């Protein structure tokens, strides 16, 4: 029995990581030979098909979206778990709605963003419209992972804190949050994944201009859109493959940075 369990667990892990390394291998084999200096030119032309502006945009887009979605998402999680009474109908409605929305294809978010941010609010195709749309898209993910992480914190810790006369706020920020942070972080990382990999929602909101943006109201394209745009007519397949490699590196970088910052943040919290 135990052997069977162990074999199954190891087999599953083996499958997961084989597929993963197969994908990474595929990306590298296809992409590495096509990486050349001209891809990193400051300005995009149809000759060099530079992906440099897209790198800059990806980083800006990710952090802007996280800056909007992470606080709102975590705070919403706080509200749902720590403030709203359990069995509260509203909480259940929100929970079900967030989970349901996580299954709506991103193109629907894109069309919504187009109608609301781009047209109604008059922001035009812009990084800002893109970031807001993406934020709405990843909110459910962050809210849910925050909720789960908070629920997993033992109540004895809350009791201890309340018992010392600490208010809710202090209890949440100083006791509960540090314990819950790893869980929240994994939600954030999944969110980053969606931001970095998103295409459909951004085409309709941030646009596809291959330039380094000079304001939040400029249109610009992320690496994923760059790749999509390059590949779609079958004209720049090699460059698209090279972009995938750079995309991987950027994802690793952004993930690393967010883990680093979360750890920093936590350290600060313990001594508060």
């Amino acid at each position, binding site marked *: 029995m135990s052997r069977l369990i162990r074999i199954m667990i190891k087999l599953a892990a083996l499958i997961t990581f084989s597929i993963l390394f197969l994908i990474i291998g595929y990306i590298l084999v296809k992409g590495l030979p096509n990486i050349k200096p001209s891809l990193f030119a400051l300005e995009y032309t149809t000759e060099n098909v530079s992906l440099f502006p897209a790198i800059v945009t990806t980083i800006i887009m990710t952090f802007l979206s996280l800056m909007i979605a992470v606080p709102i998402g975590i705070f919403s999680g706080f509200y749902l778990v720590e403030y709203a009474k359990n069995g509260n109908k509203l909480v259940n409605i929100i929970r079900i709605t967030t989970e349901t929305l996580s299954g709506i294809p991103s193109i629907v978010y894109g069309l919504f963003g187009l109608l609301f941010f781009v047209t109604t609010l008059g922001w035009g195709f812009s990084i800002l419209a893109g970031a807001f749309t993406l934020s709405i898209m990843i909110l459910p993910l962050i809210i849910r992972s925050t909720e789960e992480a908070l629920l997993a914190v033992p109540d*004895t810790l809350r009791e201890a804190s309340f018992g*010392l006369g*600490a208010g809710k706020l202090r209890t949440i920020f100083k006791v509960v949050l540090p314990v819950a942070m790893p869980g929240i972080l994994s939600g954030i990382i999944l969110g980053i994944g969606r931001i970095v990999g998103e295409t459909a929602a951004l085409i309709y909101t941030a646009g596809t201009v291959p330039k380094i943006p000079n304001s939040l109201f400029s249109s610009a394209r992320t690496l994923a859109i760059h790749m999509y745009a390059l590949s779609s007519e079958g004209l720049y397949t090699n460059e698209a493959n090279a972009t995938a490699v750079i995309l991987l590196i950027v994802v690793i970088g952004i993930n690393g940075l967010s883990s680093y910052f979360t750890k920093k943040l936590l350290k600060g919290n*313990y001594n508060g």
Partner: protein
Amino acid sequence: MDKIKIYNMDLYYGKFHALKGINMNIEEKCITSFIGPSGSGKSTLLKTLNRMNDLIDDCSITGNIFLDGLDIYKHIDVNQLRKRVGMVFQKPNPFPMSIYDNIAFGPRTHGIKNKAILDDIVEKSLKDSAIWDEVKDRLKKSALSLSGGQQQRICIARALAVNPEVLLMDEPTSALDPISTAKIEDLVQELKESYTIVIVTHNMQQAARVSDKTAFFLSGELIEYNDTETLFSIPEDKRTEDYITGRFG
């Protein structure tokens, strides 16, 4: 003088009637102990005194509890209440942070930031709870690496660090050895000078040793409440007598 008055209190967990028509007054600067078999509602009543039951969703309460004449459910801010009415729990529950930060948590909560003052409070609280010598060299280590008994004493130190008026202790020594227990008992006696103390205990010797008044609970009812000496020597109720003489069950 009565520090706390409980008036006609009923408590339900959902439909389960956990406390039934409790009326009792708890005297100021005096040690009151709650005794009774497991499940009789001692912890529940204790928690009600600083409204820790608020945290349990399906817990509903009727009746009134007064602290210094003010209804704790109506006239006192709950955080202020809990600052004034501190608590030590049955299971040790140190925060997952360093020993120092555990003790400093309360004072910091109430606005003390000065490092020197905090250091003093931490040292004093740890000494008072008879654990200073064991941990003084590893104040920066996580409190979770300590043994059960040590953890519980950290929790007592943590409660003392906010200088409460009333101290609620739910079997605070159930995880301690006799020596630490004796120290805590001594400490409790000392604290009596300036604090009102309510202590839940299974150890009738302990109740007899430390407390001035004792309340005996059974199935959610307050069966008998009297001076400790009287209760243990000439109990009025047959059930109390049976319980304290071990003839019970």
